């Protein structure tokens, strides 16, 4: 009527030359998802029987992926640039370290503790978002990232300060029910990290594909329109920042279990925060699997770069990869692949119709 478009409302699914259309939830879609799931299971099982070194690399991928999923919530979806997410990573790690070493907690129980601590701190750090906009929050996170190692050094009777903190092997013994012995600790940590990663990705998926995630994207893309639609922008930003910090904190907690010894000056400096950001950008901001791809890059690019040369070479290669990815695929690897795939196949949602008999007005 208003639009000079003549295509009928129910256009046939396949058009000439255009991409193949697959309905979400339809047969083809289910088959594709099934294949994906089987591949994922195979990769995870393959990782489960690798030698300790290579398995450790995969464990690190899982840990960084969780951390980047957290960062993605704040930076990718709601658009709050956080440079200092390393501080949440460190805070989660030290929560686990201190609770296990000083208070003899069961390491598993420290995961929820790290989550809560980082959630609360995330809400507090996110509070400036209530009033100030733009890059100011990035500045606050920068300060937080810079300050974190100093804070750790300051509370040296709790954290070991500059000397670091070592969790004894004995304290990281796999739980009885897991069936892993102390000697199989690296396998236990691998499976633990994989399971937590799957849970975290599932939660992020629920959030992002639901209306909550849509509201977050709305805030990122147009604050005035989002507010006029009834979204309390300030509350949503602060909440998202808290959740983001909490998820990254969980990754830190797992990192403490994996690595066993914590040095704030080594693992939790601003450089680590920037590494997480780079991982997010390479993988693909505001995509669901981008964090996993980014984590692969963050773990393996420096590793292979180090084989090619010493010191600076690794950093330079990392930078080259970053620039290359941004040049070829500004939306990251996952964003770029998704765009290419959409030329061949598109998945459209089901038409959301009201169930019979509930038609109103």
């Amino acid at each position, binding site marked *: *009527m*208003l*639009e000079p*478009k003549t*295509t009928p*409302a129910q*256009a046939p699914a396949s058009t000439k030359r255009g991409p193949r259309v697959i309905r979400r939830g339809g047969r083809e879609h289910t088959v594709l998802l099934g294949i994906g799931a089987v591949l994922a299971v195979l990769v995870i099982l393959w990782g489960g029987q690798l030698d300790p070194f290579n398995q450790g690399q995969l464990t690190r991928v899982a840990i960084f992926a969780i951390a980047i999923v957290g960062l993605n919530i704040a930076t990718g979806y709601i658009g709050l640039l956080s440079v200092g997410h390393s501080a949440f990573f460190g805070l989660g790690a030290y929560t686990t370290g201190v609770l296990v070493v000083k208070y003899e907690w069961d390491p598993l129980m420290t995961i929820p503790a790290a989550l809560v601590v980082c959630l609360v701190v995330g809400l507090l750090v996110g509070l400036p978002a209530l009033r100030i906009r733009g890059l100011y929050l990035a500045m606050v996170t920068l300060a937080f990232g810079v300050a974190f190692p100093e804070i750790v050094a300051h509370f040296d009777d709790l954290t070991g300060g500059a000397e670091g903190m070592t969790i004894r092997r004995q304290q990281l013994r796999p739980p009885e029910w897991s069936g892993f012995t102390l000697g199989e600790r690296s396998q236990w940590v691998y499976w633990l990290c994989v399971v937590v990663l799957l849970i975290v990705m*599932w*939660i992020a*998926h*629920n*959030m992002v594909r*639901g*209306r*909550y*995630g*849509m*509201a977050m*994207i*709305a805030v990122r*893309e*147009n604050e*005035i*329109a*989002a*507010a*006029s*639609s*009834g*979204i*309390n*922008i300030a509350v949503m930003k602060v*909440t998202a920042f808290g*959740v983001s910090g909490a998820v990254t904190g969980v990754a830190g907690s797992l990192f403490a279990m994996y690595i066993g010894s914590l040095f704030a000056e080594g693992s939790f400096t601003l450089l680590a925060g920037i590494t997480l950001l780079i991982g997010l950008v390479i993988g693909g901001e505001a995509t669901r699997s981008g964090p996993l791809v980014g984590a692969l890059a963050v773990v393996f690019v420096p590793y292979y770069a180090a084989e090619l040369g010493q010191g600076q070479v690794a950093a330079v290669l990392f930078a080259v990869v970053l620039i290359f990815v941004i040049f070829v695929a500004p939306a990251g690897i996952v964003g770029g692949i998704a765009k290419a795939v959409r030329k061949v196949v598109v998945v*459209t*949602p089901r*038409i*959301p*119709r*009201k*169930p019979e008999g509930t038609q109103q*007005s």
Partner: protein
Amino acid sequence: MLEISDLVMRFGGVTALDRVGFTVADNEICGLIGPNGAGKTSLFNCITRIYRPEEGAVRFNGTDLLSLRRHQIVRHGIVRTFQNLALFPTLSVLDNTVVGAHSTSTPHLVPSLLGWPTTRAARRRVEADAWELLERLELTDLAFHPAAGLPFGTLKRVELARALISRPSLLLLDEPAGGLTHSEVNELGQLILGLRDDYGFSALLVEHHMGLVMGISDHVVAMDFGRTIADGSPAEVQRDPAVAEAYLGRTA
């Protein structure tokens, strides 16, 4: 009923609103006309709390709108569209519409994270409702298309869908006919009247297209330099010498 009284809004030396005041009755379509820069959009921005006026009052069914915050306005039944579009470019047309239902069916954090069945059911309900509106506005072909890249006139209708899904009692339309051809403007007029009959709302309609305003408004207000210069039936306002002068004075 919307009651605007003595609103004053200044930007540096420019007085965008200079004691403007009028009322919009329930279920009526009130046209708001005036030359460029008269202050029409500024008035919308004051009503929806994007601007804070320096003086004056805006009341809607007894509620003091100026005491509310931006996101609370829609909870009191007022939604708007934007002169220069304010959509979410990467979201699909359907999802843009769904976001409009945030106030009537608010998604909560924890159930959303866990993918709770009630959250999913609410989403299906809202999407089905959005789909019906898109059918009504002939947008279903584009439902899964991102808003980015669609023509201006189409996006204006997406904004209309996003506004209507909250079932407003007052709709503020800022130049809805922008980007439309002559015959499309007539259809838009019929559409607005039809939607009002079906959903029951009052509307404040800012438009430069006189045929549209005079054709569908129950009541017309003319503004110039931030002041109300005429207020009455379409015929009365059209005859008003102050209105003719406001338009001639600018264009001549």
